[in-house]
């Protein structure tokens, strides 16, 4: 079976004046359906750049990116927008909700751009809100919610289109550790329900929820391994890693 994601020799270069910054300098990764991957690495190593490429928010300078067997590198703007809408669910460190809109409208938004009719949209959005446990907050504005609740809204928004992959760039970075654990619990459940999840973190605790850890340094994959003792043996992993 061909992998859901195949990155071969992906490079991303930024021109800063005379200087070339290589955010990614030749990344090869394959990710299968229903994998649960944590991407780790020091600050500035290229984790976010990699996530943005996978999420079709950014286009690589060179290299091949295949998503579900189609070559994403050759797609135009509108095709990429469609992929972002249908295939990708993105969760950000800073939540990125529309401040003026309530929870329901925030979660509905991808469906609006996907052209889903009003009635279906409401039903699906409410379903996603229920799944993240915010059924009683559908008509609240983001500023009436706690950080953890906001991230749940963002997850509901990412889920609502039933995407192929959930991408989360440091989803617990702005949360305290207890709330972070709760959010990770939610990702665990979503994974067990069959979703493919890729998340960026620099906390070993958080990465321990995943089945596979990809370590990046200076824009290159340094280490790619299966997690032997998952969350159950969290204390072990933390000390040994």
């Amino acid at each position, binding site marked *: 079976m061909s992998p859901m994601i195949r990155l071969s020799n992906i490079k991303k270069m930024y021109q800063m004046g005379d200087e070339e910054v290589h955010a990614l300098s030749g990344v090869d990764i394959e990710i299968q359906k229903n994998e649960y991957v944590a991407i780790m690495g020091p600050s500035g190593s290229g984790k976010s750049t990699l996530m*943005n490429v996978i*999420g079709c*928010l*950014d286009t690589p300078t060179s290299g091949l990116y295949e998503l579900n067997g189609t070559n994403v590198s050759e797609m135009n*703007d*509108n095709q990429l*927008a*469609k992929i*972002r*809408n*249908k295939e990708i669910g*993105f969760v*950000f460190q800073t939540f*990125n*909700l*529309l401040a*003026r*809109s309530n929870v329901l409208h925030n979660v509905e*938004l*991808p469906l*609006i*751009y*996907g*052209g889903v009719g*009003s009635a279906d949209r409401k039903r699906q959005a409410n379903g996603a809100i229920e799944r993240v446990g915010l059924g009683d907050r559908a008509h609240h504005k983001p500023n009436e919610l706690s950080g953890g609740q906001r991230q749940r809204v963002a997850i509901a*928004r990412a889920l609502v*289109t039933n995407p192929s992959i959930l991408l989360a760039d440091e989803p617990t970075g702005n949360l305290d550790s207890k709330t972070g654990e709760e959010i990770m619990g939610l990702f665990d459940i979503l994974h067990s329900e069959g979703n493919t999840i890729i998340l960026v973190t620099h906390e070993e605790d958080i990465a321990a929820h995943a089945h596979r850890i990809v370590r990046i340094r200076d824009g290159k994959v340094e280490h790619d391994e299966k997690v032997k003792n998952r969350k159950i043996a969290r204390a072990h992993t933390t000390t040994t890693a």
Partner: protein
Amino acid sequence: MEFKEIITISLNAIKANKLRSVLTLLGIGVGVFSIIGVMTAVRVLQNSIESGLSNLGTHTFQIQKMPMMAGRDAWMQARKRKDITYAQAQTVAERLTTAEHVGIEGWNGGNTISLLSGEKTNPNVGVAGETPEGIPTNNWTIKEGRSITNNDLIHSYPVAIIARDIETKLFPRGGAVGSQIKINSQRYSVIGTFESKGASLGGSSDNFVAVPLTTFMEQFGKQRSLNIMVKAKGAEVYDECLEETRMILRTIRKVDPGAEDDFSVFSNDSLIGTFNEFTLYIKLGVGFISFISLLAAGVGIMNIMLVSVTERTKEIGIRKAIGARRSNILGQFITEAIVLCQIGGIVGILVGIVGGNLTALAFSVPPVFPLDWALLGFALCSVIGVVFGVYPAWKAANLDPIEALRYE
């Protein structure tokens, strides 16, 4: 993406910045207001003129010594003309072949009408000396009693037909026909009453009394210029009839060939034409100023939209990240500009129509709703919204999602 969603998003954005939105649409509103206000006022005056100022009937024209509307110089020139005499007018009436009716009349203003018992009107009543055919050419209709006859004219009988204002004032309980009245100090019997003509630009059209022309000249003097009113036999012969009348008058008044007429001709058409010529300059002037102010308002819209795009960079990034296409963002911001302009336009149109109709109130004529101008104003606002909204919207649509998301 449904149209309804775009509208909702736009309205929400406009509501989110109420004060700014109101100030922006005020600019558009004022520009549209001035157009609609003036056009409504002009329309009111036009209607009033068409319905009242000239009380002539269809394919009828009037000839008189003085012009109807003229500048000071032309007016002073015209005063030197010879009077149109009763004899000249009668000759015209005899010789004309293409006329259905030829009426001859003289006017005297500022009279008091009274009952023998002493009840009287204000001293502002017009008295018209008319030949029998002067009644239909003036488009007057008898309500009760009878009209002026040739017999009345030949014998200079002291008989009068009174219009509505006089009737209401002196005979509030009816019974005018057959009663005696005095015009100033002379006694007349009332033989009929006129249907009301309603009000027009100059005030009431019902404040007059008509008497036989000969009787009129005995009371008010023969040294005066008379009006000749000609109703052509039909629309087809109207021009021919007008030409024939001019030629007859020129001949009997001995106007040199090549010299200008020494009398003035006017009809409903020529009056409306003169008025339209006059209002055209007002329309052009106001149109130009409004266009400039709308342009300024448009630049204001663009400015606000650019600020709005910058302020909402992050929002645009979020929308793009979850699948908004370039066209979605473009549509959202253009729609916002259009809706903003249209709200301003509607306000301007409504206030303009109300303001313009104050002239209707002032001249006590019916108000108008200038649908064509209202639609044009609305379309103009929409166009301004598109023209000045396109660039900011295009800027928003072309933002890079990653950079937009990173924007704080």
